[in-house]
């Protein structure tokens, strides 16, 4: 069987689970960069290994698969696995218990500020996102960048839908506030953050 750009994620993953390497190839090419970017904005190193683990989880999972926009979409499954792996990793680093609704990536690993890259505007956003609780960051990124529905995000962060709506609204407000505050600070400060002390 041949697989191409038109084949749905779900069909590809099903075929992959049955051992079809071509399907694996197409799906990795399609979703790999998104998965990598998910981790790259949250961990200092080891994003490669986390990608592998999360994808392996998706392949090993035997749950139902459905079209995009539903709780059974492949993206939803993939980001659910990715978040689990992320929390596991962050938990290994942190000394205190990890509550993804409370703690932020920046709390858990201050070295994260080092990996900020790109134009000023983008770095501003990334730095602010990392100050949000992990789940708020995940929810916002999935909503804006991955266009996941609330239903899908609810599954990824394991919260009921209405709560996710509220959380998204709260996270937007918080992010807005941080970015506006940051604008006050001179560009120079932000600029220097990229190469500040490694020990945090």
């Amino acid at each position: 069987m041949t697989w191409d750009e038109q084949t749905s994620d779900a069909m590809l993953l099903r075929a992959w689970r049955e051992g079809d390497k071509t399907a694996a190839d197409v799906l990795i090419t399609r979703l790999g960069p998104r998965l990598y970017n998910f981790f790259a904005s949250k961990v200092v190193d080891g994003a490669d290994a986390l990608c592998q683990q999360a994808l392996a989880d998706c392949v090993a999972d035997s749950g139902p698969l459905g079209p995009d926009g539903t709780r059974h979409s492949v993206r939803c499954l993939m980001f659910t696995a990715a978040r689990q792996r992320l929390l596991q990793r962050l938990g290994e680093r942190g000394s205190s218990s990890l509550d993804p609704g409370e703690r932020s990536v920046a709390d858990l690993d201050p070295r994260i500020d080092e990996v900020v890259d790109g134009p000023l505007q983008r770095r501003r956003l990334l730095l602010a996102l990392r100050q949000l609780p992990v789940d708020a960051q995940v929810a916002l990124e999935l909503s804006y960048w991955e266009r996941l529905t609330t239903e899908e995000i609810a599954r990824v962060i394991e919260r009921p839908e209405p709560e996710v709506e509220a959380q998204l609204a709260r996270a937007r407000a918080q992010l807005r506030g941080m970015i506006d505050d940051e604008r006050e600070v001179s560009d120079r400060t932000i600029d220097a953050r990229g190469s500040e002390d490694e020990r945090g």
Partner: protein
Amino acid sequence: MSSGPSLQALFEQGRPAPHSLEIDQALGSLYERFGVGPRPPVTIGRYRVAGRLGTGGLGIVYRAFDPSLKRFVAIKVLKGGKEAAEHDVRLLHEAQVLARIRHAHVVEVFDVGFFEDHGRQRFFVAMELVEGTDLRRWLVQGPAFGAVVDAFVAAAQGLAAAHQAGLLHRDFKPSNVLMGEDDAVKVADFGLAAVQQELLAEIGSTTWSIPDGAVTLSWRPGGTLHYMSPEQQRGEPLTPASDQYSFCVSLYEAAYGAPLFDGEDRASILASKQQPPRLPRDDRVPRSLRHLLALGLQPRPEDRFESMEALGQALAQVRANKKRWWWIGAAGLGVTGLGVAAAALGLRGDPEVIEPSCPTPPASFDRGSSTLRRTAGPTQQPEMIEALDAYGTALRQRWDSSCTLEHRAQARVQRCLAQCGDALAALGDLFDRGARDALAKGWSLVRALPNVHRCAPGDEGWDHGFVAAATGRAKLLAAAGKLAEARVVLEGLLTDPVVMHSDRVRRHVEIELAEVDASDGRYAAAQKTLEHTYFEAASDGEFRAAARSSVFLVAHGYRTGNIQSAIQWSRTAQTQLGLVQPRDYDLETMLWHNLALTHMVAGDLGEALTTIRRAVEHASAPGVSPHLREAALQVYAELLLFNGRPAEALEIHQTHLQTGQARPQRDAMASVVNLQSLGNTLMTLHDLEGAWAAYRDAYALGREMLGSTHLQTVSACLSLAWTQGDRGEAEQARQTLEPCLAQMVQQLGEEHPNVSVARGIAARLASQRGEADEAWRLFQRALESLRRNYGESHYSVGDVLHEMGVARARAEDREGALRHLRRALRVREATLPEQHVNRAETLAALGRLELELDDTGPGRQHLAEAIEIFEARQVDPSFIQEHRDLLVAKEPSP
């Protein structure tokens, strides 16, 4: 409303790139991992990327192959980049200056340039690949003072060479000094901070602009806050003296073992830098070094050394004086030598270095006292400090006396002592960082420090002394949970000539390595090594190693739940142990201990009890480590309890373990375990208040010393909730239990037997609160899970069935209660000894219920039998009396 762009717009701008070098690399490893065909390698310019070496402040470092020169290089790809169309000749020209220095202590830059990465021009530096570590990581290992100074002298020479070539480093710090496996010291990343600032500056619209005609990289900011000179932090032009400042901040940290500036507040750090430096007196920092730092850390650049070269020479002089001072002291001349410190700064003084007859003792010998004092901390620390200090003193004395030995013997003894010193430093470091695992086992770790007396110039002692000290250090690290570090030590040993030339010694190290593997969950590897070692040693007639590997294989069987294998290996171990002369009681104790645990897991409680008694007997032989003896007694008490003999267990606690009493030099971990076990015992004896107090203490101590997420703390918490429920504090019990249960599930997973037992407690609490449905749901779940794990005939299944019966009775469902209690009785009769107190508990519950229904039935008999067992097992008298009263009240009328 905000005046800035909408979030939607911000996210659009900030959308991560769908393609980049890093993504290509990640995709490459995904294709490889999932067996999808090979891809062409990711390339940077002409270099083929082979893997990633690390991520630093400036960017990502790759290991890459240069196909034209057929060699591996390190390639640093800086953060930031330029639009594809721009080809910045000027920046390239500037960056090429970096490749101008060739020096033994500078990382050689082969090539710099831009390469296209998915539509962006990114900057790379291809340089010499230095395999090893960096100065920052190396310092953490607690190297000897002399070696530290030597490394800094080398780095100073590298910086001086660059200054002579007209280049500033601009971001000197320990992590920028690479330490090769061949002991090479090389300064890396000259000027890169400036290049990177420029790349970022051009892309982001920052306030930095590039003045016309600026062709050197000497003025721009960048660098790492703590190490930056004050002028750099103020954004002023830099001079070679700025690198001096960063160098001295690094040197200060290395010498004092603490940062010079605390905190993150830029303004307050700058304020400190603008004052003359404060250099506390510290025995480990010679006065000459303090003077050097004082000069190098002057706020005004012009007040520092006249050049980096002068600084380097002064530092070399410190080293020479330190050597000389020690030599004079050792020769008994009683001269402190500090008078020459001033000369060290004179630079134009006598450059002749006096060769010492004996090397300086490593700084690690002083680590003990420097650590714990600084950390505010849990109990018993003063004694621990003393113990570590005493150990350091013993090391220093041995070192001094080794100076009279002939050269080779001296070197061997000192090598052994240095290992001991490394172990001391490692332990000091763990305590210093407040590592939970280390603090929990504090005293055991102090006792596990390698035996100094092994470092003796005996007939054959020194080689083995060194290996013993190094394996001792590895064991200590492993016990403290630092498995990776332990592995590094052991793997290093395997390539040491001393070890490679003796099969006996090699096996010894391999067995230890297998233990580290097992602790790390690499069971298959551990088993393979142990089996291999066993067969090899047995065929060589080397009984001790054969015995040792087979005992470890028993432990291995226990840990992996492979009962049959454990029992088979225990027979082999007995045979081998019988051949070892003189007998090794430590090893024999370990054998019986592990075998007892194996029987316990298999559900054979009687056999487990018999076996642990043998362990206790062997542990009482002279010379057996007290730690092993206590552990065996602890399991003995536990197994007496499991065999339904709580009164005897209590006696072990009170007389041998002295649980609940403050005992010097006992590990926090052991205290928590003992208290928990005491609580279990008292609970079985129906001494509710006593049990509650023991659990309360266990939980409090666990939280203080082990942390609230430690499984032992979590267990104490669950038990505390159990007694709170029985004391009628239903709501409090719920509040205690819920977070701990969640914690346990998180760590062990839903299906772990301990989680099922914990869920049984939750069910009991729910039942006590009158939430019968909730209780029932939890019981069912626990029961199913235990059955899946253990099968029907395991005592823990009987425990849950009993609780279910009691809960049904409480919910007034007599039929259900009778049914479950009868099933519980059947399971308990099949799995527990006849006189087990738990069997009596079920008999009593059943008897009470039967009597309520029918005075003449089997109830009387059940109750009477229960009372008999309770009496034999010395359960709380008032509890027995209650049952006796019931029996009298229900006396059938004649």
